[in-house]
């Protein structure tokens, strides 16, 4: 009995850590999708870049963990501003196929460019000393870094929720997601709003990519390999909300970890089946609006 309990606690813990990474990466995609309806398959590229910038700042230049992570998020957000202004902007409200092709093209280009700069091998991720090892929580001990991930994730969820519900900026985002034309009519500069939201989402993805570098290994094919995870979180959660992706990320993170632990021969099979089942039941996702 205590063995089973220990397994459940362990699955819940590691699943939650994975869920936090999935959430940080996907939430920006959900909000930008909900606002502009832009199918951005290249969102994972920003998470990958965050991971690369952070790990190389740490290993090559000896920058401490926290400043390296912050620098990675800011640099990626700024980079995404350029891409948005130059390329994405042209295709808003356009053909879905064009958006898919443009962002797939960006994935392929980033794959080759990253291989050129960093080589094909995964980037090593060494947590700083104060985050390595185990922490005793009284009833049992957990890996410190994973506990830190969960704390960080919880803090970001709270901050995002407060930001969206309680600030002027968040209010305008909600207005634009609910009804883009009406938001424009009442004088919200949706174009600029979208650019900032996009940069924020990319910065969060970079944060998730950097924080989760030991869970989702930083390799050149990162954006392609993990694309299905990010899309599942966004689609299951429902577009344009920040609560939906959170529930979806927890659901996917915990079940994926659980089934890989309990039935390794089935691998990731179960979450794909679960995804199809959920979308059969609710085609617009758990929190999607009709």
């Amino acid at each position, binding site marked *: 009995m205590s063995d089973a309990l220990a397994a459940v606690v362990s699955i819940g813990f590691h699943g939650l850590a994975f869920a936090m990474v999935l959430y940080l990466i996907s939430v920006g995609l959900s909000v930008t*999708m909900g606002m502009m*309806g832009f*199918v951005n398959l290249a969102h994972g590229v920003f998470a990958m870049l965050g991971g690369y910038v952070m790990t190389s700042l740490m290993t090559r230049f000896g920058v401490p963990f926290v400043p390296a992570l912050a620098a990675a998020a800011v640099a990626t957000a700024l980079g995404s501003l350029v891409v948005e202004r130059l*390329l994405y902007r*042209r*295709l808003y409200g356009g*053909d*879905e*196929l*064009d958006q*898919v*092709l*443009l962002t*797939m*093209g*960006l*994935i*392929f*280009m*980033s*794959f*080759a*460019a990253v*291989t*050129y700069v960093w080589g*094909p091998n995964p980037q090593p991720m060494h947590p700083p000393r104060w985050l390595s090892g185990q922490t005793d929580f009284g009833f049992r001990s957990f890996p410190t870094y994973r506990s830190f991930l969960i704390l960080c994730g919880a803090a970001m969820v709270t901050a995002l929720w407060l930001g969206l519900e309680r600030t002027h900026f968040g209010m305008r985002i909600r207005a634009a997601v609910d009804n883009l034309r009406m938001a424009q009519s009442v004088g919200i500069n949706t174009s600029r709003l979208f650019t900032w939201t996009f940069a924020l989402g990319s910065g969060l993805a970079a944060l998730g990519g950097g924080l989760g570098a030991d869970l989702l290994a930083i390799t*050149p094919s990162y954006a*392609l390999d993990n*694309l*299905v995870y990010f*899309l*599942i979180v*966004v*689609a299951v959660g429902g*577009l344009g909300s920040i609560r939906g992706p959170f529930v979806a990320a927890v659901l996917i993170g915990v079940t994926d970890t659980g089934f890989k632990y309990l039935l390794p*021969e*089935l*691998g*990731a*099979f179960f979450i*794909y*089946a679960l*995804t*199809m089942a959920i*979308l*059969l039941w609710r*085609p*617009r*996702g758990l929190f999607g609006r009709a």
Partner: protein
Amino acid sequence: MATEGLVRPGVTAAAAPAAARAAVDAFAGRHRYRLLEALPWVAAIAAYAVFPSYLPLGAQILAMILFALSADLVLGYAGIVTLGHAAFFGTGAYTAGILAANGWGEPITGLLAGAAMAALVGLVSGLVVLRTTGLTLLMQTLVVATLLHEAANKASSITGGDDGLQGMEVWPIFGQFRFDMFGRTAYFYCLIVLFLCWYLARRVVHSPFGRSLTGIRENVRRMHAIGAPVVRRRLVIYTISAALAGTAGALIAQTTQFVGLSFLNLERSGSALIMLIIGGVGRLYGAFIGVPLYMIAQDRFSEIQPVYWYFWIGLMMVLVVVFARGGILGLVDRLRR
């Protein structure tokens, strides 16, 4: 994406001025064969004579044209954007491959079995996937392909898993034409199958059913309003397209005598889209232009730098979307006007 001019309601052929009548005539005569349509077939036969040492590559190009053509049916005509077309390609390939590796190497029945299995997967997955639209649909097509990829990976006792399926033995076609190492038989085999499938696809596209698909792509609400069975029609074309994709996969499996996990992955689905986009979507002939260009370029470049090939192909996709919508055939159209 709309490539064909539509006639405005209220303009009847008799009352219309000459220009409009010409448009109506062109519209009504679109299904007739034009001389230019013989060009791909003449070129394919000429290529056989001119490049005898490249026939194995040529056979692969012909099979990939069929794959891209099948993607064109759902993408260009029905407007279903999919990232999982490799699911059907891989199903067809594994079906033909597993049959040939287990003592049934007859190619024609193997091909038909591959097509039938792929159609079945298309039908069943279509029932689920086609209920949604946009990003969710995209994600579900990807999930179906990933699911099959995972299945092929785990069932390594049947599929060979990561190493690929070994030991295929394909018998001569009709007991007469052995698959030779120069790829002559393979080339003609692929060419004939491609021709038959192209004929089928052309008939489908120009039938009333095909026209209603274009209607669904252009304006779903109106098609619902006039009582067209939108869901069923999308499912039917999805299944037909899956069968053609399965045929293409089976062709490659039989002619190269190998099936691997790469038959089912996202790169496979993505590359079909790219090849189609380079040629032009929704034209039936985009595949015939895009696939040879892509595959010959890949054959040349990837020998030098396989990884950096992806950079150029990615750049090409971005440039096509930003500057050359409609691909090469679209550019030709614009120059002619």
